[in-house]
């Protein structure tokens, strides 16, 4: 049995202009210790999917359908206090912008200790000791002093290390990282990513990495999901997706990267923009931008073909592959 299984998840946002479906029919699973990447551009729904797992979709969004099975229990059906035993305990999160993630008026120590005390019977002194240990584990110099500082006294990279330390405090089974390095500088990004990867491997923590950066996905994850306009369009082993993507969108996304074109040449751009979730086109959401579209793409929502962990939602995929 998979550690975490998301089945037919649907998330809606009731807005003034009508109800917006942010996630449609999203299913995926995660095994113990596995690292899964969720890739997509802004508005694709990748962050919503991540937050929906812990029922943390920002208001007024809500989970309107589907199941989130964690060790066989449906998280969507849990009471608040039951959910609390999972949230921040078994499944932890790392947010995008470390400048915004930590509470500015509480010390690092307070924000770490409260986490332990919320989930375990532990004395404040013991919790503090554990917190210092975790700070050391994420290579924060002189953690005994840092623990009593406020977030604004730390640099962005340091703060993200603190956030990672908080995520590791309770020895979780899953860490969901939502663009954990996007807000950081290139050199810091690389360090944080490596740290995160090492810690997950070392502690056998499963990782869901939400990102728009295919390079990061390639470096860190074993399996990847590509999302477009609120739906999964492709899933597969990371290497396979990057080397031979099957969905035209995934192909376009990878080929649009500068490193896929010789310097000075035009990049392979995908025409058009991702549709707003308010008016997703009929049929395949990608068809207006797709070079391979046929008439059927405009009416028919493509079903997934392939196996559970290597699937693609495109009507033309078979033809395309036969042709190759």
């Amino acid at each position: 049995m998979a550690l975490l299984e998301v089945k037919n998840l649907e998330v809606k946002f009731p807005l003034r202009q009508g109800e917006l479906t942010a996630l449609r029919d999203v299913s995926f699973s995660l095994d113990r210790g596995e690292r899964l990447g969720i890739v997509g551009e802004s508005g694709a729904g990748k962050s919503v999917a991540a937050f929906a797992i812990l029922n943390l979709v920002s208001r007024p969004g809500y989970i309107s359908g589907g199941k989130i099975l964690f060790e066989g229990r449906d998280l969507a059906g849990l009471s608040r206090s039951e959910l609390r035993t999972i949230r921040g305990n078994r499944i932890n999160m790392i947010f995008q912008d470390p400048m915004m993630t930590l509470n500015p008026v509480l010390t690092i120590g307070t924000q770490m200790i409260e986490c332990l005390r919320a989930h375990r019977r532990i004395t404040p002194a013991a919790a503090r000791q554990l917190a210092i240990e975790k700070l050391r584990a994420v290579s924060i110099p002189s953690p005994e002093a840092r623990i009593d500082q406020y977030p604004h006294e730390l640099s962005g990279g340091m703060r993200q290390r603190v956030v990672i330390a908080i995520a590791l405090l309770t020895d979780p089974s899953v860490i969901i990282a939502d663009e954990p390095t996007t807000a950081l500088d290139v050199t810091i990004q690389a360090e944080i990513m490596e740290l995160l990867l090492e810690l997950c491997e070392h502690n056998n923590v499963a990782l869901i990495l939400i990102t728009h950066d295919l390079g990061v996905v390639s470096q860190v994850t074993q399996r990847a999901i590509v999302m477009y306009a609120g739906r999964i369009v492709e899933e597969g082993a990371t290497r396979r997706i990057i080397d031979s993507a099957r969905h035209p969108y995934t192909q376009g996304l990878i080929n649009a990267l500068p490193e896929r074109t010789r310097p000075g040449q035009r990049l392979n751009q995908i025409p058009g923009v991702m549709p707003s979730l308010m008016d997703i086109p009929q049929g395949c959401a990608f068809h207006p931008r797709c070079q391979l579209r046929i008439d059927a793409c405009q009416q028919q929502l493509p079903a997934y073909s392939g196996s559970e962990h290597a699937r693609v939602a495109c009507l033309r995929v078979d033809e395309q592959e036969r042709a190759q």
Partner: protein
Amino acid sequence: MIAFLIRRIGQALVVMFVISLLSFSIQDNLGDPLRELVGQSVSEAERQALRDQMGLNDPFLAQYWRFLRKAVQGDLGNSYFFKRPALEVIMEKFPATMELVLGATLIILLLSVPIGVYCAINPRSWFTRVMMGLSIVGISIPVFLTAIMLIYLFSIHLGWLPSYGRGETVMIGAWESGLLTWDGVLHLILPSIALSSIMLPLFIRLIRSEMMEVLEQEYIRFAWAKGLQRRRIWFLHALKNTLLPVITVGGVQIGTMIAYTILTETVFQWPGMGFLFLEAVNRVDTPLIIAYLIVVGLIFVVTNTVVDLIYGLVNPTVKLTRGLA
């Protein structure tokens, strides 16, 4: 810390300078001091001689300087009406006003925080809707009207509470307190409610909107993701951040509160500084007006400093002690 101190002192000096200038020009303009001393029957020549003797013909700066020197020593002249030192008269009324402000502040603090927080947490509940509706009505009713309505309802109609004066008071040293007798407390109830009537809805709305903004922040979302208890998220993580702007605004509102004491004290004939001030205005009792202005100026300076200090204590990113370390 140095910057803070210097700025505070600077601000205090500016405030007191403006007040002293204002006071001095009042003194210069209002009523001829000679008339107070001698009658109409004294001849013009004698008047001139007296003027010279009293320094009233000295240059402006010299007169102002003399006024300042005396003022700093606490000598603001005798009240024309009470025939006693004006500062003394004002300070006698100081406790009454302070107790009124204290009562109103307590009401505001005790009600606005819980109501504001509740309304922020449950934006859709019926209680929130009612409170929001009531608060905008509350903001729209002038303090003196609330006061009149309270008197009409609770004193005249129901006869539950006294409508004017302080009731029985007790002297604690030089402080005349109405808080220690049951009668005094009863007398304090209506004026305190009236004084808090505009500020309370204002604070409820302020706390609610600030808190709602804070609840949208990433760090609150992160706190939820950490699996903390709701109470801890609301009352520690969110409330502490909410209070920062509230403290700032609160500091500004202290001035408004003092101003409203004039209205409240007038309606309830509360024997405080505001009531006395208005009487002084009507009687053109210049030294008393000046004394009032100076005391009020000092109150502002002190409270603003205290508010800044509190802000510095709550907000770790403001370091008052920087530079001392």
